[in-house]
């Protein structure tokens, strides 16, 4: 359980995080979504007390991270996937972390097995591929068997197999009752992984709620129709109260009627359909819409505040 209250972080004249309040619940994967520079990483660093908030506070399990002793038992974080001394062997990288929190060395072997690095544990971190380095970072986060996991862009640098593996790992961690907060700028990935979504833009909270609700709220769905009789079908559907937009000579985009109704009406009028499908607004569309509005809003205020990048 992570709880942020009125969290702000100012760097000089830039407000990287702006009055951010949210809570991350246990037993689900919470996506932390926003374009690059939205303040996701800064927020995550504040959660684990690496950066100090300019104002506001954030707690993990009801306590400030900075007050925890041996915090790896409670919170595991992946903030910078390449954070390893290139000359140190992968196993030793986990060994010193384990020592710092009184985690038995046996657990190092366990997490190396979980992330699939047991065979290359003797290699120096600098000799690992990008994907292996990412797995080493995830191993470090899992080391203390924590109830809370905070992962900043965990799929960066992973191959498709690795991405699938992370997706399953996050799911199983959440199913075990853990709190999983995972950031990404890839909306499509979040749609596949997250149950709950926190969207930020320019340091501000734009949306927080269940994934499905987020998609539904941001435009719902429409029916796509491809037909050689676009004009006739368009007239017919408009008569039934639908909003019809012609996307091309044969393509129609219909709102206000379900695809079932469109099919029945077309059949009744003897019109040929090549294609009939319901188009749900993708997370990507919803996300773009949200951040676009926000960018415009910020654009006008920026003109009055020179010096803000």
């Amino acid at each position, binding site marked *: 359980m992570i709880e942020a209250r009125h969290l702000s972080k100012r760097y000089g004249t830039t407000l990287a995080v702006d009055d951010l309040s949210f809570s991350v619940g246990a037993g689900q994967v919470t996506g932390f979504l926003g374009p690059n520079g939205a303040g996701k990483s800064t927020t995550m660093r504040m959660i684990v007390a690496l*950066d100090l908030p300019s104002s506001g506070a954030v707690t993990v399990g009801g306590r400030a*991270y900075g007050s925890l002793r041996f915090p790896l038992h409670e919170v595991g974080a992946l903030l910078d996937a390449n954070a390893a001394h290139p000359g140190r062997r992968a196993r030793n990288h986990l060994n010193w972390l384990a020592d710092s929190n009184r985690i038995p060395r046996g657990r190092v072997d366990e997490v190396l097995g979980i992330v699939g690095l047991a065979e290359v544990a003797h290699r120096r971190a600098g000799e690992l591929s990008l994907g292996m380095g990412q797995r080493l970072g995830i191993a470090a986060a899992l080391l203390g068997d924590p109830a809370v996991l905070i992962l900043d862009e965990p799929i960066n640098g992973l191959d498709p197999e690795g991405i699938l593996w992370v997706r399953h790992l996050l799911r199983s961690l959440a199913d075990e009752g853990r709190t999983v907060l995972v950031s990404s700028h890839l909306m499509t990935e979040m749609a596949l992984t997250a149950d709950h979504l926190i969207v930020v833009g320019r340091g501000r909270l734009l949306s927080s709620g269940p994934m499905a609700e987020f998609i539904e709220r941001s435009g719902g769905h429409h029916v796509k129709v491809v037909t050689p009789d676009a004009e006739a079908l368009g007239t017919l559907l408009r008569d039934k109260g639908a909003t019809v937009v012609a996307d091309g000579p044969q393509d129609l985009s219909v709102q206000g009627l379900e695809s079932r109704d469109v099919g029945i009406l077309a059949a009744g009028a003897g019109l040929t359909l090549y294609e009939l499908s319901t188009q749900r607004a993708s997370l990507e569309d919803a996300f773009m819409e949200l951040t676009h509005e926000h960018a415009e809003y910020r654009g006008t205020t920026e003109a009055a505040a020179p010096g803000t990048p």
Partner: protein
Amino acid sequence: MTQVLVPPTPAATPDTRLSGVFLAASRSEWTKLRTVRSTMWALVITVLSIIGFGVLLTAIAVGQWDHRTLAEISGFDPLLYSYAGLNVAQLCIGVLGVLVMTSEYATGVIRLTFGATPQRRLLLGAKVLIFSTVIAVVSLISCVVVFFVCQAILAGKHAGVSIGDPGVLRAVIGGAVHMVLIGVIAVGVGAVVRHTAGAVAILFGVLLIIPGLVQLLPAPWNNDITLYLPNSAGAAMSAVVRFPNLLSPLGGFLVLTGYAVMMFVVASIVIVGRDA
């Protein structure tokens, strides 16, 4: 395969007192220090510098003695040439001490370190403790070895001293303490500056450049200030004979310890308030 990701349980950490945190952090720092190659190389060079330069310069000096007057030799400090290598060794130790902090900032490891031990002052203390201990062991062994080898060379000219002679044991230990305190200062500079190049430049500036610049000042300022520079304060600890341009051994110890404590305090203040 058994289920390794067991359901989360309330954290059952054995000893969560701050002393327990410090011990765990110290153990962790020891693991860190011995699992990178740069440590081993820097320590090898340190040992070779102390022993190699000491033996070499002592042998050269002894070879020149037939041409010297008795007056020149009578003011001779039996450890002067033996401990010439400390001037080089302190640079190796300085770089290694700086790297103890700055390599973590350069590689991003500092975030893992502070994440694992949010008690940053304890962590800095653990780093300094482990590094000082390693330097103490390595430089004390080197100082003892170079002492006996060099005195054996000097004994051929009947100019050697025994470890039991007044002030000699103190000077041998003083050489090692000098190295330890330089190491502590270096870790502190690394923690404050955070960038390897900048921290090394500052440290070398203080150890190599400033003494030369101070000598350009008009007398008596040049000699008065030189007394209190880290180099001279350190050298005073390993001198057997009292030189007019050095503090007393105790004075040198206090001055250099003062610098080390000051750097540690500054580092422990800034390390807490800064973002990592």
